[in-house]
């Protein structure tokens, strides 16, 4: 039995996850629901990055201050860290917006926010 996980499996999972998140973002009325869907989509991306990192990492040549050494690369994982950070920011801002919106409209249905139209 193979002791490995082919990358394509991960890609398929993340594609499905992304699509599910996409559906949620497009169809939920609740603004918080949309935020949740966005988190799903971000996670799909992160999953890919982690998988690629696990594949490529060990062969990466790393330049330190003193010498050049072969180390496993954490680049993909660092990407994920940044994505998580930005996602956290996004969540915070989004929730703040939702609270402000609720304060004005007494509702968090994005369908109610349709003033800016023809």
């Amino acid at each position, binding site marked *: 039995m*193979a002791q490995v996980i*082919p990358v*394509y*499996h991960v890609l398929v999972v993340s594609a499905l996850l992304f699509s599910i998140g*996409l559906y949620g*973002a*497009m*169809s939920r009325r609740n603004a918080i629901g*949309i935020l949740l869907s966005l988190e799903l989509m971000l996670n799909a991306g992160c999953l890919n990055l982690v998988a690629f990192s696990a594949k490529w990492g060990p062969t990466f040549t790393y330049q330190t201050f003193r010498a050049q050494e072969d180390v496993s690369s954490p680049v993909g994982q660092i990407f994920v860290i940044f994505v998580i950070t930005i996602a956290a920011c996004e969540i915070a801002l989004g929730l703040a917006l939702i609270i402000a919106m609720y304060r004005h409209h007494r509702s968090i249905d*994005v*369908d109610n*926010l*349709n*003033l*800016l*139209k*023809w």
Partner: protein
Amino acid sequence: MNEAAYITGSLGFQLAQLGMWIPLCPIIACFLIFFCQVILPKNIRDSFVYQTLMKTTSILGIGFSGIIATWIFYHFWTHQLPVVNGSQVAQTLLFSTETIHKSWFNIGAHEIQVGILLDNMSAAVVFMVAWVAFLIQIYSWGYMKGEKHIVRYYCFHSLFAASMLGMVLSDNFLTFLISWELMGLCSYLLIGFFWLKKSAINAQKKAFLVTRIGDLGFFLGVFVLMGIWLQTGQPITFRFDDFAKLIHEYGINTASFSEIVQYSRQFSNGIPMYLLTAAALLFFMGTIGKSAQFPLHIWLPDAMEGPTPVSALIHAATMVAAGVYLVARTYFVFDPLGTGFSPALLVVALIGAFTAFMAATIGVTQYDIKRVLAYSTISQLGYMVMALGVGAMGAAVFHMTTHAYFKALLFLGSGAVIYGCHHVQDMRYMGGLRKYMPLTFVVFGAGTLALMGFPGTAGFFSKDMIFEHAFGAAYVDHPELWIVFILGITGAVLTCFYMTRMIFMVFFGKNRRELIPESERHGYSIEEMTPKESPAVMTVPLIILAVFALFFGWPVKYGYSDMFNSSLYVEHHFGGGEQTAVVINESKPALAQGGQRVTGTTMDRGELAHGHAAADIHGSADVDKLHDTAHSGSHSAHPSWIIIPQLLALLAVLSGIAAGYWVFFREDGRKMKDSWKRQYPKLYDIVYNKYYCDEYIQRYIVEKLLVFNMFLRAVDMYVIDGFVNAVASVTVFFTRVTRWFDQGIIDGIVNGVAAVIDSISRGIKYMQSGYVQNYYLIIVFCVLSYMIIQGHTTLFNIKAVILLIKAQFGAM
């Protein structure tokens, strides 16, 4: 002009640089007053302090220029550089300290320069103008007291003096013309100063329009001269010395018009004489207008409507002197050969002599004290023009200067008389005033003696010089000038006669103020009309002017008699090089090769009779030697006949005074005069009505002009307006067509496009639903569409896709 041409004062700067401030001082004062008048509110403008301040500003301005003029005059006077080598022409330019010529503006590639020209003549004239104007302004302080618009008066006065000074110092035709026209404007403004008087309004218009006729001639003359200049192909210039040099260098072609046309159209054989004559006569038109010569003299008596100091200014210092000065300044055009005789000068002499005589006869009959003086001015101007015509430019300018002193004196004196008589001007209501105003009588008498040319006064020397030249010109060369001399002498007799009459009517006999009709008393009773002496502010200028009028002749006669010769002219015709202009007669080829040189035949007469044997000393640079030579020659060079005109002039003065005394002071003479009046009523009437000049001009020129104007008006109304209206109609028609096209087709297209876009927009605007998820859906749809379109070849290959997926999973 060589290096030595720059006369530097003892302060070390160029005199001309200083001379620039002569016109600038009064003009700065004028602008200062003008801006104060414009800016300040009415209550300040009416205040006494403000008015005093403004008057002081004006007087200070002209006073400064007087001081500078004196400095320059003194300099020219004491150095006495001989005119013959031309080193007296000091020229530098306005707004410049270092360079010779300062550019004023450019016309294309032509640089127009501006500058000032100082020579003997301009130095002498600015001295006269500045001080006379200064004294008149002082005098006005008293005379115009209580006048509401006194500040305006002083503003115009300053501008008037400034423009005259600027004109005298101009070194080119352009600034000369500008100042000349400014003077016309100022005379217009000042003659009509009492603008509520209908007669003053008419007089100002008359003065302006009549002088404008002459100005037109002056303009055309400048054009002719410019035309000549352009034939040389040199860059455009307006400077007098350039023109003088041109005439000197190119020589004169004396062939007649037809001959020149027949043989040559070029200037290679000299400038055609007829062109210069035409230019000279056109210039002389300007003189006729400004200096009130015969056909256009009619404006000057009417100009008496202005305030009396203004009359003094116009008659003495500024306006009328300009015409004489114009001829003197452009003498190189009038007398291009340097012989003191030319066709143009003959016309000048004849018109001058006739004017001198005619105005003197009119002066005999007038009753208005200012009108008598006005006609005497015309007469004296006639003498000046006559002197110019007989080739005595120095004598003319000398007479202009002395005349300025005594005529300013007489006018201001008459102003004092009018002031004393409570603004009565008619001499029939005066009489016996010597008891009431003795000081005025004394100074007025001094002015009268000077005007008569009584021996010893300034007028005697200047008039005597004119008669000597006229006699000399007639006796030696040109017999046709006898008429000029005779008219002049007769005019001198008449001058003495009417001045005696005036003195008698004003100052002698019994006072006749009770005859003044009620309408002319200005609300005073007869007792209140008692004549009174003027205040000191008016009499002091009179005394100063009297001193000049009496004694100004002596230093000139026995000091520096060439002070009044334009060295610009003399330089180019008698100085420097070989000889005067070269005369080539194109129609005689044999002579043309050798070139007939005209030597200075007038050297032993004319103004040079008094001056120097110029031909002997040319080319020398030793100024002192020249000086000595000139003055040692000045007494020995008198020809023997010189005593005849002197005696005749003396005789004329004495006979005129004697006749006047007999006719007006003696009972039998008065009776005889009255019987003559009854005997020849027609003659008296004609002279009294000034030969009906005004009426003739009114009937034969003005009315004809008006008829012509009616015709022009008809042409204007029916032809021009008709044409314009027709053009307008056609335009309207085409405009209608264009409007139809514009509204129907162009607008239709535009509106159609707009309507189509509008309907489309109405349809698709619902895409803008306002639902954010809707937009998101569309974005995803587009992205997906893009992905599918890009990858359709592989994506729709379902079999391959399934196989590949299987393979990918198969790696498990």
